[in-house]
């Protein structure tokens, strides 16, 4: 069995998982209006960490995150020869060195914590986080490592913000996932981590079970979501089949929900095709914005807290159905037995990934 635990988050909503989960439980958003950040000097909504100003902010986030993790597990695990770190990130520390966005920060992390194995950087657009957790599970099942710490991290840069602006994909309001009035993404930044292991005893709090996950490509378009949700449909179907789980066993879906017109429509189409439209679902983008390479890890971490507390968290920003296929979107927090949950992600390059978590 593969265990997953020690979930952690650093974001505009807090410096650790407790602060972040409390904020989410109170339906507080990390999104705020930031003056003059747009390409034309316009004010834009971002989930920005105002404390994050150091030149080495990306590196500092990674180091702080591993410090947070070290108090949640047997601390000797971090520098074990049987431990690997997988970093999930799209742009790394691009502002520091555009030709070498990952090495300096990862090198510093290796040195600081005396890591024994060269970390792997998964850079697979917005599915990076889910894909990295799946890779961790696969590596452990194959016996290559005993423990894998998956860290997802991305910071806001002019580069990425202007890029999404050039695609007319940035929302003027805080993003409204799955809502009728949604009009694009709100960018966010932060860092999140989970520990995946074959050993239950390394965790200070009881871990959950990580079931095998999969990925699938739309084979349709590099930046436009598939109209049929083909890749998302396929990865979810593969994942539930591999684990012999049926749709009615899934208590909750942590969806991707970027709040662009086409992404949310694509997801609704895929869930409808899978007969999953009635399963309670949320998007965390209304709380954290879209944190790109960190998103999949962060949303998995929040889902784990939701399971531990048997609390369904409402999808912030949603008020009126806005997809052609209806979904069961959580409109308020409510106690709910959450034993098995599905996490999905979709991204540029036509990629989609999914994973399942189950209580022990």
């Amino acid at each position, binding site marked *: 069995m593969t265990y997953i635990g020690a979930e952690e988050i650093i974001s505009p909503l807090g410096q650790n998982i407790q602060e972040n989960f409390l904020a989410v439980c109170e339906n507080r958003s990390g999104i705020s209006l930031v003056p003059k950040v747009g*390409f034309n000097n316009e004010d834009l909504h971002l989930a920005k960490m105002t404390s994050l100003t150091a030149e080495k902010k990306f590196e500092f986030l990674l180091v702080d995150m591993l410090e947070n993790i070290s108090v949640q597990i047997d601390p000797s695990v971090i520098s074990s020869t049987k431990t690997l770190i997988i970093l999930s990130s*799209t*742009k*790394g520390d*691009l502002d520091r060195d*555009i*030709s*070498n*966005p*990952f*090495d300096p920060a*990862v*090198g510093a992390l290796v040195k600081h914590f005396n890591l024994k194995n*060269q970390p*792997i*950087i*998964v*850079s*697979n*657009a917005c599915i990076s986080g889910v*894909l990295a957790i799946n*890779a961790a599970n*696969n*590596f452990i099942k*194959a016996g*290559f490592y005993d423990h894998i710490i998956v860290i997802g991290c991305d910071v806001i840069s*002019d*580069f990425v913000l*202007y*890029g*999404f*602006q*050039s*695609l007319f994909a940035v929302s003027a309001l805080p993003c409204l996932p799955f809502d009728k009035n949604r009009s694009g993404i709100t960018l966010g930044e932060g860092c999140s981590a989970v520990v995946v292991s074959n050993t239950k005893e390394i965790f200070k709090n009881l871990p959950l079970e990580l079931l*095998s996950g*999969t*990925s*699938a*490509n*739309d*084979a*349709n*378009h*590099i*930046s436009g979501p598939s109209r049929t949700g*083909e*890749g998302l449909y*396929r990865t979810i179907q*593969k994942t539930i089949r*591999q684990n012999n789980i049926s749709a009615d066993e899934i208590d909750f879906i942590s969806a991707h929900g970027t709040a662009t017109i086409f992404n949310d429509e694509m997801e609704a189409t895929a869930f409808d095709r899978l007969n999953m439209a009635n399963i309670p679902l949320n998007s965390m983008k209304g709380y954290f914005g879209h944190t790109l390479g960190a998103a999949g890890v962060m949303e998995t971490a929040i889902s784990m807290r939701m399971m531990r507390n048997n609390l369904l968290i409402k999808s912030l920003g949603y008020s009126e159905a806005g997809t052609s296929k209806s979904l069961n979107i959580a409109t308020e927090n409510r106690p709910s037995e959450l034993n098995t949950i599905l996490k999905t992600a979709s*991204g*540029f*390059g*036509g*990629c989609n990934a999914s994973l399942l978590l189950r209580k022990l």
Partner: protein
Amino acid sequence: MSFITACCQISEEACAVNGNVIVRKDEQSADSWFKQLYKELALDYPKFYKMDMLAQAGFLASEFIKKAFPELVSSYADDEIALLFANSESSSDTDIRFKESFQKRKSPSPSLFVYTLPNIVLGELAIRNKFYGENMFAVFPKFAPEFFLQYGSVMLATGSKAVLAGWLNILKGKVEVSVFLIEENKADGLPFNKENIIKCVGLADQA
């Protein structure tokens, strides 16, 4: 048992399939090196011109492999060929160009921005070949044969029947491209192990 059944390497001046040079760069040609290779393939796929160099590199190498094995794509179901790619430069070549579009030309270019992720090459290969299978793009400071061996084995053990793997570095004119095919239950080819991965990628000095 799995085997490496085909490989294609492209450098700044030559393109080789299974170790045999099949095209050398014509320095006199008005066409870029990658356009020369595209013409050599005699394909009609205008999307090629829209791709960035990283995507073009993956496209060209995989097309040369397909040319050598015309039955490759049709002999597998549409989700049985996994894509496992890595490099050390991420999408830096295009990242630099996109940054110039908003810093120097004062107009962030959407058509460049969509290529500022290294996994876009996987999307292009998936679209071209109707591959709906597994995808993975990873970044390492230097060539990491163990990663290809470990994750290639993982992919073959979790449902994929073949893996199209690639090490693709494109930055400021540097061209370091190797794409190789790993297949299960094939009688011919090089056993899928670290030595043969290094041999196929041709980077023994770095590994």
